[in-house]
């Protein structure tokens, strides 16, 4: 396809996405798609580490949670203005990622996984215990939606909030696409493929991984801020290990190493949670079905669902 054709197709897709709240047949679906977009942005940010840099993190909820709490605190106590609360949340997540990253990226493989998990659980304990600030297990409620500063545009209306989330998602996705297609993105792929060789070429791979960690954490923080304002509520669950694991499942089921994959994974996971959890026969067992789907994709589709969409099934991985 010509590049002009691709651009036109992209513009058409974005237009359809942004206007979904207008043509959606049911209002309920608007909320579902908001959740898919927020989870999709979160999963894409994690995939920068997992799929591009080859760093499997079990602590990505730390930055989602820091973004969520920071947004809630700033919006409640400082200003709900979108120009203050959203950058505030992103900055808080970036700083958390920098501090945790300095210690974590020196390790690799299982040690990186355990370190990120440990740091995230420390933050979870903090969210749980620092009651005057975080509200402890009650969390923080009455979190305002951001104020975009345009008179007559009220984000407390779901259809308006949808457009806001969709715009942040599109901008975030384009920014992440620019990152993975940049020289830096190629260098991250080099680290994933052969870190020792990258060092021999003269790359300071520790710094590359730290930058990737901070970029990923920042976008996770933005996703967390969107979640806090969508739910108008933050709780320690946003920092808990299950939030990290769910994001990892989205990345792996959808297809690591692509940006469309994690979004597809988020769509699948949110759909299962939304539509299956209500079925009387399924109920809480939807997670079992998700687990089965996860096992099947790991076994039969090494590039995830996006790999099936693009090129069919593969045989189980050989060691």
């Amino acid at each position: 396809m010509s590049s002009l054709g691709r651009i036109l197709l992209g513009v058409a897709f974005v237009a359809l996405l942004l206007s979904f709240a207008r043509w959606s047949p049911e209002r309920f679906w608007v909320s579902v798609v908001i959740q898919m977009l927020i989870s999709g942005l979160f999963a894409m940010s994690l995939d920068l580490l997992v799929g591009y840099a080859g760093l499997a993190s079990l602590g990505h909820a730390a930055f989602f949670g820091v973004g969520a709490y920071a947004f809630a605190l700033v919006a409640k106590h400082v200003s709900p203005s979108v120009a203050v609360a959203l950058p505030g949340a992103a900055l808080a997540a970036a700083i958390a990622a920098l501090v945790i990253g300095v210690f974590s990226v020196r390790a690799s493989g299982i040690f990186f996984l355990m370190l990120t998990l440990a740091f995230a659980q420390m933050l979870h304990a903090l969210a749980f215990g620092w009651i005057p600030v975080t509200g402890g297990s009650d969390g923080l409620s009455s979190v305002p939606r951001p104020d975009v500063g345009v008179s007559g545009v009220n984000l407390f209306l779901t259809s308006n909030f949808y457009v806001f989330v969709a715009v942040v998602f599109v901008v975030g996705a384009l920014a992440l696409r620019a990152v993975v297609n940049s020289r830096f993105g190629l260098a991250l792929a080099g680290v994933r493929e052969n870190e020792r060789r990258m060092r021999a070429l003269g790359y300071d791979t520790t710094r590359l991984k730290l930058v990737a960690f901070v970029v990923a954490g920042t976008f996770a923080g933005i996703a967390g801020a969107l979640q806090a304002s969508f739910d108008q509520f933050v709780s320690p669950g946003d920092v808990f290990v299950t939030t990290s694991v769910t994001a990892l499942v989205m990345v792996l089921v959808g297809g690591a190493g692509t940006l469309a994959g994690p979004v597809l994974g988020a769509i699948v996971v949110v759909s299962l949670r939304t539509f299956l959890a209500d079925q009387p026969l399924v109920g809480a067992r939807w997670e079992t079905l998700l687990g089965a789907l996860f096992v099947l994709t790991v076994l039969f589709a090494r590039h995830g669902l996006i790999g099936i969409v693009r090129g069919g099934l593969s045989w189980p991985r050989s060691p």
Partner: protein
Amino acid sequence: MAALAVTDLARRFGGVRALDGVTLSIEPGERRAVIGPNGAGKTTLFNILSGEMRPSGGSVRLFDVDVTAEPTWRLARRGLARVYQRTELFAELTASENVELALLRSGGVWFGRRDVRITARAAELLARVGIADGRARARALSHGERRQLELAVALAAGPRVLLLDEPTAGMSPIETARITELISTLPREMTLVIVEHDMDVVFRLADRVTVLHQGRVLADGEPRAVRADARVREVYLGHEAIA
């Protein structure tokens, strides 16, 4: 000023002295072969020179700068590149991307787009080592092509000193002849240090030869003189057919 000066270098592994006081001086533009029987310490020497292993004692100077125990990436920035004995490529990346990564390092890594000039420069280097299609993934290349790609990656960094660790290992005679020819056409100002088992290759390429034996320098000199050295014949060349 020597391109590479090694003084009294030692490396012990437990009770084993892999290197036991090695002193070498390699001039800029020189092509030096390091030979010796298995276990002589050649690979240990290379690992220390490329910064992947710390010596137990002694020093390494690169263009008169003390670089002993500097990390690999910093040595690479000072102009030292290594072609590995085992291929060390980015398997899932294309041949072109493998070379681009080496080219981009000197231009700094940032969020700028990858531009066409870099891709064109990579294609040039690939053509020079005899790889026509840069779009093939590294893991899909034959053994010989991987070695050629290794060389292209090393050259892309524009090194002043190139360490070649058995560049013809595992190659067919035709591939060996080709890569030897290729190495011989490298710019003369580039200093080469070659570890190699194939004596034809050594005598074809090297200006000087250093013979290691049990972690020490046994002989050091022009190929003809080393070949004639009785001790060298005894420990190493005895089994080789020497014309």
